[in-house]
């Protein structure tokens, strides 16, 4: 048994449980699991101070593979379980592992409310645009027209954009990354870890069994430069295999431009600002290949008081003002009468 000491150093193995990982070979989930373990080992907080809470779906098996505290709860409710957990244990590093069906369909309600409250938790949303565990039905993020077992003639559902939804709920941290881009994946996870408040991270995750190649444009190293833009705070939005394309704000809309054409220079480009107005972040979040590059990286990171912090501060404030509660006084109430022995009126 290990004990908590100030100078403990951690390795990836310290965060790995003894359970066999049961995802399909080639699944993007392996990459995310490795990245999370690596980041946490580097951060130096002992494994017992983490709780991983998940819902239902392939990705929700994640907590079983981490040697931390964990709960594999029920479909869609990891967010709600984590809310009760974090309110009572603000000291615990709390992570939520969820998927597109879990967080956006059956659990959409809770996801919205958790984000608006700004509970201090990290949400990793494994978006594979398909229902994997039930063997291949379309999900709320599947593109319009998607042919699946439950939509043999194509889906007629408009997809939900996870980051737009998070921004609409006033998210304090919004990021996006890609399973097969390990360096980027680890960096976004690290940024989420350091954020105080709800850190909402969408991970493009390949389901090689039921939806293989859905994010090929972002995963393939050759395709990625022209189809993805890696956001960096304070830097102009440049992308392309030749680093010659950029994003400008033309009136109210975003446009892709080529540097050097029509006199466009790097100075004309939109400079990414993690603290910018929500409406700009909303536009960037919805950029989608092939018309635009998909934006990955930290889209938004602003400071906002946390829900668990405020709830616990209210308690502290009341106790500081009035002192700890007197249970006898509370139970006795304000209006009492006494019945004596043999009392007669």
């Amino acid at each position, binding site marked *: 048994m290990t004990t908590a000491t100030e100078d403990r150093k951690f390795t990836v193995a310290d965060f790995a449980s003894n359970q066999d990982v049961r995802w399909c070979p080639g699944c993007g989930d392996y990459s995310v699991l490795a990245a999370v373990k690596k980041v946490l080992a580097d951060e130096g907080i002992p*494994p*017992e101070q983490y709780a991983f809470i998940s819902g239902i779906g392939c990705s929700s098996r994640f907590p079983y593979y981490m040697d931390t*505290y964990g709960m*594999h709860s029920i479909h869609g409710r990891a967010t709600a379980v984590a809310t009760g957990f974090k*309110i009572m244990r603000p000291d615990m590093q709390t992570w939520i592992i969820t998927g597109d069906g879990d967080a956006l369909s059956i659990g959409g309600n809770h996801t*919205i409310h958790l984000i608006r409250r700004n509970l201090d938790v990290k949400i990793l949303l494994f978006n594979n645009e398909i229902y994997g565990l039930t063997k291949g039905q379309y999900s709320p993020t599947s593109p319009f027209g998607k042919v699946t077992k439950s939509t043999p003639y194509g889906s007629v559902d408009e997809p939900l954009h996870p980051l737009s939804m998070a921004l609409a709920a006033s998210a304090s941290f919004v990021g996006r990354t890609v399973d097969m881009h390990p360096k980027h994946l680890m960096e976004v996870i690290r940024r989420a870890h350091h954020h105080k408040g709800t850190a909402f991270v969408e991970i493009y995750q390949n389901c090689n069994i039921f939806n293989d190649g859905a994010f090929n444009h972002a995963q393939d190293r050759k395709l990625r430069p022209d189809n993805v833009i890696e956001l960096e705070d304070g830097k102009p939005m440049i992308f392309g295999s030749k680093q010659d394309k950029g994003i400008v704000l033309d009136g109210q809309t975003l446009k892709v431009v080529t540097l050097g054409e029509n006199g466009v220079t790097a100075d004309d480009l939109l400079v990414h600002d993690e603290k910018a107005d929500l409406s700009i972040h909303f536009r960037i979040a919805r950029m989608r290949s092939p018309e635009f590059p998909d934006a990955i990286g930290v889209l938004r990171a602003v400071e906002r008081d946390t829900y668990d912090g405020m709830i616990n501060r209210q308690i502290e404030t009341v106790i500081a003002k009035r002192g700890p509660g007197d249970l006898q006084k509370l139970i006795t109430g304000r*209006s009492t*009468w006494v*019945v004596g022995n043999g009392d007669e009126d």
Partner: protein
Amino acid sequence: MSVETPSQGPAKATQDISSATVRFAGDSGDGMQLTGMQFTNTSAVFGNDVSTLPDFPAEIRAPAGTVYGVSGFQLHFSSDDIFTPGDELDTLFAMNPAALKTNIGDLKKGGILIVNLDAFTDQNLKLAGYEKSPLKDGSLDNFRLHPVRMTEATLKAVDEVEAAWKAEGREFSLNKKEAARCKNFFALGLACWLYGRQLDTVGQFIEDKFGKEPDVREANLRVLRAGFDYGETAEIFQNNFKVRKAKLPPGMYREIRGNEALALGLTAASHLAGKPLFYGTYPITPATDILHDLAKHKSFGVRTFQAEDEIAAMASVIGASFAGALAATASSGPGIALKGEAMGLAVMLELPVIIVNVQRGGPSTGLPTKTEQADLFQAVLGRNGECPLVVLAPARPIECFDLAIEAARIAFRSMTPVVILTDGFLANSTEPWMVPDVSKLEAIEIEHPTEPNGPNGTYLPYKRDEWLARPWVLPGTPGLQHRIGGLEKKHETGNVCYEPDNHGLMVSLRQAKVDKVAEYLPEQEVFGEEDADVLAIGWGGTYGALREACTTLRRKGHKIAHAHVRYLNPFPRNLGTVLRRYKHVLVPELNGGQLCTLLRAKYLVDAQPISKVKGRPFMVHELVERLESWMTTNAAH
């Protein structure tokens, strides 16, 4: 101005009576609940035993004057022990025709009927569905009718205050409409005179409530006294009544509602266990008051969470319990249905949580403000899979306090979810409560392991103790990291396991754990002779009516005993023996026969249902008649 009870002038006669049942009925905006509660306080502080029943519509402000907007508050006060809010009314205050129409059926023959004559306008009569005034058509001849111009008298009293204030150059803010709204205090003042009550308790309430609005306070005080004076001086009342103090056991008392007792019980359990209380919930009638109470208790470390829905409320409670807190939620039938899946998770995770169901009329949205006991099956059986948990039911409002503490004790000792079934009647009814001495309440022991319990320094999260409970490790404890989840667990290790024999073992262990709770719970007690022929067995809020009915029947010579079950799953360990002592087992309950079915299934006794499903509690006389009729028909003797 302080309120002094006016000196009794030419004294009218006072008649001693042992008990009285009074109901105030009016529009839901007429302040009838407040009036009833204040009269209750006055009676309780005077020393009567009191039991109350508020009855209000689901609509917050239904159109004025209509029958569906009528709100009532009934109280029964006595110099004897009483258990129910009373059957028939001795006195009815009807503030308008609709209130008269919907309540007159409960007034006993020869009872006192006081109506606000000013409200009997053509329009109000029409709204209530009267073709002509019932005050004039002889239909109320069986009652002692007293039409009183309450609105007019109220306005006159307020006018006096206004004139006096203006004479002193002080601002007076009440307009005529607001002044007329004081009329419930006129009715209250008159009720105080009728039953020989002092005005000081109500006066103090008005002082407290309207302390910041001196003109409103003054107006209400004056109207209250005007009502009292009216009784004293008007020629229509020949006498008033006196109900002497009840002989309650000596001690300090307060009056308490079931929901309030439950909130206090949860707070006390938190104190006794040394654990902060987490209360995650979603507003739903008739459970919401518990949230209102607990939200105020911040200085006791109570964290309340108003979740986005019922499911989130239940899930948050599971998270809080995993975190190491005393975690509770409350709802009513429709909300409990939504919580069902998460309750199953709590059973699988074997975490201590408390789930309160303040039952109301169902199915579906049903009768939100009315009482029923039809969620017993839902509590005991209503989840997927073999999913046992503990179910408790307080029998009286004051027991909500005790059973909340007991629920916490059971949840912690046996690492199980515990359901507390109350109902709309218990939630809103009040009775006197001897204030418990906190220092004498037994502490709740909890152990959080910090050392490994398995071979080679491993931790086995599903290794069980003598009660078959698994250990409760606080997250953050070094070396004891573990994962729990809704998938079937391997015995002891808690790892995901689909093996058939292991599933069979875990199903039986979860059941045995809940069954074992009966070993440390009290045995079933029976009221009445052991040699009785008939046992009337009930549960929950029907206790008072059933106890009074059985007492009446025994006085009439029937050999009947009464048992009231507080532990519905598992049943008390001696219940089978108790049931088999009697030739006949009758099960009065406010549902189609749910406890009856469970008793028949478990004990193979020929229990017979006495059902009522009308959204209303049992009346004592109704139970007496139905039990007697059953016994006569079935030749019980």
